[in-house]
């Protein structure tokens, strides 16, 4: 029997799982792995902070569907991954963090750089492991990949004591995993599928509400076929954007707190809502008791805990979104009988809502003649002809990126949805570029968010990743300031950031190109220059701090009680 070390076993396991790249940061507890990794065919991307390494892995996973892999050391290395793990898990993104741990005999002794990371991350991961022996390492790794990537995907942490990595064992990689207690339900129940189809055929004012599950399951094509076959308009949650073509005539835009008027109105007046891979999040439903009161609700989700969690539904269908939609389509022949005569009126009603309250802003009404942030997004959309991968941070810019850039393809819009992690954008964008080097990847960010992981400019420079960083710089923490504008007497407590830093000089300090724009004309020039440049570019757009995100549903209101314009301030 030939034996190899735990560190070597881990690398062999990664190869069997077709891992190509690992994001992370080294330390004493993981040095054995790095020693062998450096001699292997696998690529290691040295991020400059462990939190950013997890976001980079998320960017890799979100842009491809393949699991993102992270390697960090024990103690602070491990605790720095907490935000990334929580965000990935909440958005159902397959990310696996391998953390170093002190040797088994030291666990519980308050050893140097020791932390009970399995305890810390228990509630924010889909599952986690402390590997007790070198012999069981391969089994744990196999299970970790299986759990992270199947069912409703999620984040998994594997904690690796140093002596387990140094120990020797025979390398046997399990061919398959059987977890008695974990068997995701993927196949739709035929009886439920029949109920769904009968409701779809009867509906006169149907709406499809699509979430991130459509993208995770690879169900965009089936969704498009279904919508076109029955002429059903489609709205997407923030996580669902790209799951249905943004330029399609049946697309309503995003719904919810900053959703389009027509999307929210359509949901409120619908007689049937087909929710696919979505979870009726509070940012979508607004006041739950008033949400879609006239509609029967069909809910397709692979996670049974999502069903009836917020909104009681009429027909639950626990299944993989793609399999469920395929089963529904099987029962709808190419020319099915449905309430076709009702559609022109329903679609016209929706168009009329849009004509009365379109998504709009006025570039020319700023007293200082500053750029409007929405204008930057539109200019980016035009310059990239809608083809770029857009990665956002969190805040006003994120909502404008969701509203004004139209995403025709899944995995084209990458954002931190459920947890709303500022500092996500830059590292996630570099992770997306590692996965898809041929793509144009733009991170749309704010002057608040981008500073939260600005050290990643060093990673970008070292790896030569041509990330285009578009900073909507308004000198404030805009999303919180907007709440202060509307509901807190304009007392801008703790939201003024000022002019710091000078992003052009900051870019120069990392050896990167930095450009600044102060007018709409300069905006278009800067974007053209940045896109023509083969390398990374930081774009600093000095935008109006007065602009707020509309429509907006105030907290505790129904989603058709939207504030549409600043003029309607209470």
């Amino acid at each position, binding site marked *: 029997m030939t034996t190899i070390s735990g560190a070597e076993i881990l690398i062999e396991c990664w190869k069997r799982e077709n891992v190509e790249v690992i994001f992370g940061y080294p330390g004493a507890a993981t040095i054995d792995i790095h020693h062998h990794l450096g001699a292997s065919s696998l690529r290691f991307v040295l991020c400059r902070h462990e939190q950013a390494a997890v976001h980079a892995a998320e960017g890799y996973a979100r842009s491809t569907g393949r699991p993102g892999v992270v390697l960090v050391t024990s103690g602070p290395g491990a605790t720095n991954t907490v935000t990334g793990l929580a965000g990935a898990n909440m958005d159902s993104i397959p990310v696996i963090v391998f953390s170093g741990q002190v040797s088994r005999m030291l666990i519980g002794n308050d050893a140097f750089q020791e932390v009970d990371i399995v305890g810390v991350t228990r509630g924010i991961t889909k599952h986690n492991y402390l590997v007790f022996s070198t012999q069981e390492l391969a089994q744990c790794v196999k299970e970790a990949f299986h759990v992270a990537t199947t069912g409703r995907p999620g984040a998994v942490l594997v904690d690796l004591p140093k002596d387990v990595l140094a120990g020797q064992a025979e390398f046997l990689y399990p061919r398959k995993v059987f977890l*008695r207690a974990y068997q995701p339900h993927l196949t739709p129940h035929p009886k439920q599928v029949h109920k769904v189809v009968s409701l779809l055929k009867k509906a006169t004012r149907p709406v499809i509400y699509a979430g991130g599950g459509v993208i995770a399951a690879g169900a965009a094509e089936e969704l498009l076929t279904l919508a076109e076959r029955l002429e059903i308009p489609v709205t997407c949650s923030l996580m669902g954007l790209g799951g249905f073509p943004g330029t399609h005539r049946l697309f309503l835009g995003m719904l919810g707190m900053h959703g389009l008027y027509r999307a929210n109105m359509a949901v409120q007046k619908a007689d049937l809502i087909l929710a696919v891979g979505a979870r009726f999040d509070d940012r979508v439903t607004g006041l739950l008791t008033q949400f879609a009161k006239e509609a029967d609700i069909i809910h397709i989700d692979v996670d*049974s*805990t999502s069903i009836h969690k917020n909104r009681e539904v009429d027909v639950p269908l626990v299944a993989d979104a793609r399999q469920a939609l395929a089963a529904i389509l099987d029962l709808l022949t190419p020319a099915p009988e449905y309430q076709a005569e009702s559609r022109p009126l329903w679609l016209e009603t929706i168009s009329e809502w849009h004509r009365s309250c379109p998504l709009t802003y006025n570039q020319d009404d700023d007293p200082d003649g500053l750029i409007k942030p929405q204008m930057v997004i539109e200019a980016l959309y035009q310059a990239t002809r809608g083809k770029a991968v857009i990665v956002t941070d969190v805040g006003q810019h994120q909502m404008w990126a969701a509203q004004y850039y139209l995403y025709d393809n899944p995995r084209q819009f990458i954002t931190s949805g459920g947890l709303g992690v500022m500092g996500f954008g830059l590292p996630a964008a570099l992770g997306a570029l590692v996965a898809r080097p041929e793509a144009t990847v733009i991170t749309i960010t704010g002057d608040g968010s981008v500073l939260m992981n600005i050290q990643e400019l060093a990673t970008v420079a070292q790896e030569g990743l041509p990330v285009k960083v578009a900073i909507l710089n308004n000198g404030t923490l805009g999303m919180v300031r907007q709440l202060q504008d509307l509901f807190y007497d304009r007392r801008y407590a703790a939201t003024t950031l000022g002019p710091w830093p000078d992003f052009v000089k900051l870019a120069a300090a990392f050896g990167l190109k930095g450009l600044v724009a102060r007018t709409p004309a300069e905006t278009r020039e800067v974007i053209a220059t940045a896109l023509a440049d083969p390398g990374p570019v930081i774009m600093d757009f000095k935008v109006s701090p007065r602009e707020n995100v509309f429509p907006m549903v105030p907290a505790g209101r129904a989603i058709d009680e939207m504030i549409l314009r600043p003029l309607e301030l209470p």
Partner: protein
Amino acid sequence: MDLSSDNAQRHTLAVLVDNRPGVLARVSALISGRGFNIDSLSVAETMDPDVSLITLITTGTPKIISQVIKQLRKLINVIKVTDLAEVDHVERQLVMVRVKAVEGHRAEIMRLAKIFRAQIIDVSSRTYTLEITGGQDKIRAALTLLADFGVEEQVSTGLTAISRSPLAVKKPDSKPGH
């Protein structure tokens, strides 16, 4: 979600889990993390040494309990969750109680022990220690009566329960191959 306790009910949940370190922590953290108290808890290995049974009692509205059960089922190490309120079952708990047994009270305490089918498991010059097994109503009744003599100390196990018909558990088709 309705957090008021107007229609809150007591539920006994039988949770079959993988017999591995950390699993109890996952189960209890899931419940406490949502702000619910565990009124009683007992854990022991089942006939299958790879499987443990956690019997726990918690109180909540039907909607909350149903959500807790679904969340428990989502845990990777949880094999099966049964709300015993929904099935015919038998519950038992064990209490040990040390009561003052002064001259003149001893015969009465022994008579009570006989009525409640309790065992006297330890005797000192001034005290009797009783072991009482039963459902919660019986135990409450016995303790109320014993209180008159003066209870020095009382300890209790968690409640455990068994359904009156089998709770099916899926067996592995095959062991993971190499």
